[in-house]
C-alpha cells in the first residue's frame, strides 16, 4: 500500500494503491453509479454501471475493480462516460417490468435513481420483454423474491457466500435466462437473511414484513441502537408520524442497520430487526394501582406520590430494586443515585436472559440486553454479582423484602403467587403490559428505547448514543425523569433533568465514563476507559 494522488474530474485526490477508483470517489463525496459493488462484499464487476474513462487506456474501465495508481487521470462525468453508462442502464432495464407504482422498492430504488440522474432516454426496444417466473415468491421467512425485477448484480449471492456463509442464494442458468433463486426445495434460512433485501439495489428482494405497509417517502428516521442483544448494532428507526390512521396507529415501520465499522458494519440480524412491535403494541401507558375494585388508573404524579409513600413506610433494607439491563447508562445511574445511595435500598441485577447460550461468532450475543455491561460498570459489579432469577424468592424471604420494585422483568405466575404469600408488595416499572404489571400493586409506565435519549454500553465497552424517534405514549417517561419526580415526592434534593446532564453526573464519578462527553459521542460511539 502506498500513497498516491489521482485526478478525478479535474480534482486532485490523495488516496492509496489498495483502494479502487470507485472507493476513492465515494470516500470523497463523488458518486459514481454502481449496482454490484458493495463495500462489505467482494468485487464482482458485473453490472458495468461504474464505467469511467482513464487517460491512457483506450477503453472505458469499471472503476469498482480498477485500483488507483499514481498520476491516474480519471473522468467519470464526461460525455463519453455518460453515454456509455446510459446504454448500460438501458440494457439493465430492457426486460425490467414497468411496475414501479406497485413495487415496494419505489422511492429507494437505484434503478429509479440512476434513470433520473444518468438515464432519461426513450426506450428503443421494440421486442417483447423476457418475462421471468411469477411475481412475489416468498423465499424465506422474511424475504420476498420478484425475479423479473432482478438485474443479477449478485450482491445477495455474495452475501450468503461471504457474510452469512450459508450459500442459499444462487444465480441459475445463463444470459437472459439467468435468475436468482434458492436451491429447489431449500429456503433462505439464516439469521441474517433480511440483509439481502437491504443490499438489493432494486425491488427484486423485498421485505415480507414491510411490504405495502408504508411508502418509503412517508418515513422519518432516527438513529438508534438495537436493544435486542449486547452487541448494540447501530440501527435506524424508520417511523411514520404523518399517517397514524394507517396501520392502526403503529409508528415504527421498520428497523434498518446503520453503518458502524466497529460494531455491525452494514449488517443486522433478523432477531433484532424484527423485534420492534413491543414499541407500539401492548404498551403500559398510565400509572395504575391495585384497589379492591380492580385496577385504578392514576396520573403519573399521583402514582409516584403513592410510591414515595410506600418507600417512606418501608425500611430501606427491606426494599429491593430489580434493575434492568434494558435501562440506559443514565437511567441505571439515576437508579443508583436515588435507590442505592440516597435511600439505601437493595439493588440487584437479575441474570435473566444473560446466559442464554444463543450466540454466534458474528453479531448475535447470548446476553439479550443492550446494556448489561453499562449497568455492571455503573454499580461496580462483576457478572458474578448478578442475582440468579431462580434465587429471587429465597432472597426476598431471607432479607424479608417488603417492597419489590421490578424494572421490566417478566415474573412467572408462580413467582407472583409466592410474592403474595411473602406479603411482598410488587411495584412494576415497565414499557409493556405483562402479567407482572397486571398483578403489581403499582404499575409505572416507562419509555422504550425509541422514545428517549441516552447511551448503551455494548459488550465491547463501546458507549453508543441513541436518539428519540418520537414522543412516549401516554404518561410513559424515561426512568431518570420518573426518578427525578419520585425524588421530589420523597423531599430529596435530587434532579435528573436530561440524559445529557445525568451523563455528566455519571462521568464525574466513574473512571470508565470519565473521558466521554455526552455531546461528543459520535455516530459510531466511543470506547470507555479500558
Amino acid at each position, binding site marked *: 500500500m502506498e500513497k498516491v494522488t489521482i485526478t478525478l474530474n479535474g480534482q486532485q485526490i490523495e488516496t492509496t494503491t489498495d483502494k479502487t477508483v470507485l472507493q476513492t470517489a465515494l470516500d470523497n463525496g463523488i458518486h459514481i453509479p454502481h449496482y454490484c459493488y458493495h463495500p462489505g462484499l467482494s468485487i464482482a464487476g458485473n453490472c458495468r454501471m461504474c464505467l469511467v474513462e482513464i487517460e491512457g487506456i483506450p477503453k472505458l474501465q469499471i472503476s469498482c475493480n480498477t485500483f488507483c495508481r499514481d498520476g491516474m487521470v480519471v473522468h467519470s462525468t464526461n460525455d463519453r462516460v455518460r453515454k456509455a453508462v446510459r446504454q448500460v442502464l438501458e440494457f439493465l432495464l430492457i426486460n425490467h417490468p414497468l411496475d414501479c407504482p406497485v413495487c415496494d422498492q419505489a422511492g429507494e430504488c437505484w434503478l429509479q435513481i440512476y434513470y433520473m440522474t444518468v438515464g432519461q432516454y426513450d426506450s428503443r426496444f421494440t421486442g417483447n420483454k423476457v418475462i421471468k417466473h411469477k411475481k412475489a415468491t416468498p423465499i424465506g421467512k422474511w424475504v420476498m423474491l420478484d425475479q423479473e425485477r432482478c438485474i443479477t448484480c449478485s450482491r445477495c449471492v455474495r452475501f450468503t457466500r461471504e457474510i452469512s456463509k450459508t*450459500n*442459499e*442464494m*444462487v*444465480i*441459475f*442458468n*445463463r444470459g437472459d435466462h439467468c435468475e436468482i433463486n*434458492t*436451491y*429447489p426445495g*431449500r429456503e433462505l434460512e439464516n439469521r441474517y437473511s433480511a440483509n439481502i433485501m437491504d443490499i438489493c439495489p432494486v425491488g427484486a428482494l423485498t421485505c415480507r414484513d414491510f411490504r405495502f405497509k408504508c411508502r418509503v417517502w412517508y418515513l422519518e428516521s432516527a438513529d438508534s441502537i438495537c436493544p435486542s442483544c449486547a452487541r448494540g448494532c447501530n440501527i435506524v428507526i424508520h417511523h411514520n408520524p404523518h399517517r397514524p390512521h394507517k396501520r392502526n396507529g403503529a409508528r415504527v415501520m421498520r428497523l434498518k442497520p446503520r453503518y458502524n465499522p466497529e460494531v455491525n458494519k452494514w449488517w443486522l440480524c433478523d432477531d433484532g430487526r424484527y423485534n420492534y412491535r413491543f414499541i407500539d403494541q401492548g404498551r403500559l401507558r398510565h400509572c395504575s394501582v391495585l384497589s379492591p375494585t380492580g385496577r385504578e388508573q392514576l396520573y403519573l404524579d399521583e402514582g409516584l406520590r403513592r410510591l414515595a409513600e410506600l418507600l417512606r413506610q418501608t425500611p430501606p433494607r427491606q426494599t429491593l430494586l430489580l434493575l434492568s439491563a434494558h435501562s440506559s447508562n443514565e437511567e441505571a445511574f439515576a437508579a443508583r443515585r436515588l435507590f442505592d445511595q440516597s435511600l439505601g435500598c437493595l439493588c440487584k441485577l437479575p441474570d435473566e436472559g444473560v446466559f442464554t447460550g444463543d450466540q454466534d461468532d458474528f453479531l448475535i450475543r447470548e446476553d439479550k440486553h443492550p446494556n448489561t455491561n453499562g449497568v455492571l460498570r455503573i454499580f461496580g459489579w462483576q457478572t458474578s454479582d448478578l442475582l440468579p432469577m431462580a434465587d429471587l424468592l429465597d432472597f426476598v424471604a431471607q432479607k424479608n423484602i417488603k417492597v419489590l420494585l421490578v424494572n421490566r422483568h417478566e415474573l412467572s405466575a408462580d413467582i407472583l403467587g409466592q410474592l403474595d404469600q411473602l406479603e411482598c408488595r410488587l411495584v412494576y416499572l415497565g414499557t409493556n403490559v405483562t402479567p407482572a404489571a397486571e398483578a403489581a400493586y403499582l404499575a409505572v409506565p416507562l419509555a422504550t428505547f425509541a422514545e428517549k435519549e441516552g447511551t448503551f454500553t455494548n459488550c465491547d465497552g463501546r458507549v453508543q448514543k441513541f436518539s428519540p424517534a418520537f414522543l412516549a405514549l401516554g404518561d410513559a417517561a424515561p426512568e431518570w425523569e420518573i426518578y427525578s419526580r419520585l425524588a421530589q415526592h420523597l423531599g430529596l434534593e435530587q434532579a435528573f433533568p436530561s440524559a445529557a446532564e445525568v451523563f455528566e453526573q455519571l462521568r464525574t464519578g466513574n473512571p470508565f465514563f470519565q473521558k466521554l462527553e455526552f455531546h461528543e459521542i459520535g455516530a459510531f460511539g466511543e470506547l470507555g476507559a479500558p
Partner: protein
Amino acid sequence: MELTVNLKSRLDEIKRKFPFAFSSVLPAIHAVQEEFGYIPLEIEPAVARYLAVPQERIREVTTFYFMFNNRSVGKYHIYLCSNVSCWLRNYESILAYLEKKLNISAGETTPDGRFTISLVECLGMCEQAPVMQINGISYGDLTPEKIDRILDNLD
C-alpha cells in the same frame, strides 16, 4: 440417491487433481453425466457432500453450461448446429429430415430412448456445414443420404 462405486472412484481421482474443492466441480459434473447420461437433481446433494462444496454451487454450474443435461437423454445425443454457417447451408432441411426420420422434434427423445435431437450453436466446423455431432463425434457436409448412412451404422 447415492453415489455409485465407480463414480466415487472417479470423484476421488478428480479431487486429487485440484487444490480447491470448488475447482473440482466442473470435471465432477462431467463424470456424473458420463455415469447417468444426465445430471439427476437428486444426485447433486450427494456429489456436493462428497466434494465438500455447497449443493447450490453444483446446480449453478450445471444450469450455466448448455452441455449438461438436466433430464434424461437418448443413447445417441444428436447436436445439430443452427449457427450462421450451417444456417446459410440450410441446416433447416437437415433438421426437418432428422425430425421426420426419428419422428420427434428438436429437444425431444425417441420413445425407445435411442435418440435425442438438440439444436446447438457453432460446433467449430463451419467449412463442412451443415454439421452435427453425435456423442462427441462430428459429421459434416450432411445430406439426407449421409444421415441415413450414419444413423444406420449406429447399433
